[in-house]
């Protein structure tokens, strides 16, 4: 079967499982909304503050929500040792990485697409014409988060204690993506010209490329027993 076909099949499988149980998406979304509301109570931001605080709130919430989704995603495979079956039937372990990556990315993008407007409404920040650049940064940042996270979510397959480590791992390792994404979002919301935003976008693209490549290379070593 073709490379693309295999990846598509893997994503199809994850999609069907998720659509039936709706477990992961629900958990991630509810969690994200809760955190957003908590932030509002914690900071009670004025209209001025809100514009400054929203990027941070957005990305911290996404980072935490992603760890939820990431570990749940591989627990699916742990249930009946299905990961072993995948290792037997899929020749290139990197394809398993790609499949999981895309499934996780889809979930995170959905959560992000819901969270951003929700935060904007709660914080009273209009998004308006900046929706395009914001969506782009949201997508790029999510790719980076998921690229790193998918590599280490394999750890949740082995023992339960490892699941706890995933958020602790993800935040420092994905820090370049988070830092740049926050900064880029901030710049966009401040209404700065494209020339100011571009360096950040370029950084994000570079980080994504690096993490995707290294993740792909390292992943197969983590699959083995």
């Amino acid at each position: 079967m073709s490379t693309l076909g295999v990846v598509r099949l893997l994503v199809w499988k994850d999609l069907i499982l998720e659509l039936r149980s709706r477990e992961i998406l629900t958990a991630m979304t509810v969690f994200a909304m809760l955190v957003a509301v908590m932030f509002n109570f914690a900071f009670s931001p004025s209209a001025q503050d809100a514009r400054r605080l929203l990027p941070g709130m957005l990305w911290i919430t996404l980072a935490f929500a992603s760890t939820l989704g990431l570990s749940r995603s591989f627990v699916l495979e742990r249930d009946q040792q299905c990961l072993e079956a995948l290792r037997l039937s899929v020749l290139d372990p990197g394809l398993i990485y790609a499949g999981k990556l895309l499934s996780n990315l889809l979930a995170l993008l959905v959560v992000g697409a819901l969270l951003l407007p929700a935060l904007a409404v709660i914080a009273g920040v209009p998004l308006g014409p900046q929706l395009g650049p914001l969506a782009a940064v949201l997508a790029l940042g999510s790719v980076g988060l998921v690229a790193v996270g998918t590599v280490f979510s394999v750890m949740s397959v082995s023992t339960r204690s490892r699941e706890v480590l995933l958020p602790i791992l993800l935040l420092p390792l994905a820090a370049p993506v988070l830092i740049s994404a926050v900064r880029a979002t901030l710049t966009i919301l401040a209404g700065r010209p494209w020339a100011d935003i571009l360096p950040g976008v370029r950084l994000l693209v570079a980080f994504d490329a690096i993490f995707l490549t290294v993740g792909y290379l390292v992943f197969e070593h983590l699959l083995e027993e």
Partner: protein
Amino acid sequence: MQAVALQNITKSFGPIRALDEVSLTVARGETLAVFGPNGAGKTTLLKIAATLIRPNSGRVLLFGDDPLRRPALRALIGFVSHHSYLYPGLTARENLLFAARLYGRRDAPARAAALLDAVGLTGRADDLVRTFSRGMTQRLSIARALVHDPPILLLDEPYTGLDRAAAGAFTALLRAMRGSRTVVLTTHSIEQGVALADRVVILVDGAVAYEAANGAQDAVAVERAYAACVGAPA
């Protein structure tokens, strides 16, 4: 040429040596039963044969070729674990379709239907695997393992969790479906293993403690040998 050849396999997990210079061959079309107490290394041995685990030293040959060098050889293997390898959230048919397509079968729907029929699960084909009994999931596991028609079938303690009736049904099914395949089976249940096997091996502490000559053995003889090797009834 032997179907499966394990040459001087050694595997350690940290300081614990699971397998110690184990050599084993299985002829084409032969069914080999591997008995042994817990911790003997049966599962490790089978997984090494399936290339799921890399040995520290030694070689695995499938029909004379090294699957570590040619990963495509993995398609020669069908594996039945005591885990089901099935997604509980998918139906029986979907599980088989997924496996069939993963192996690149163009006739996936037809193949799935045929296998469901062979294992007697056509009536439950569109039910979620989550609703299946243990016996049913094990039958579906065989179907899944055979979806790409592999010449080698490996079964790791498949009788785990099966009561007597289900175990008997499983044995009958296996006998019906194995055809001319080469089969290696590890199990605690000497009775079921002997019913299927052409040859018998007993593994203790990571080494072959007893290897029966060719020809069917009766369960009593094997039990006696087993007791001698292990020092306690199985």
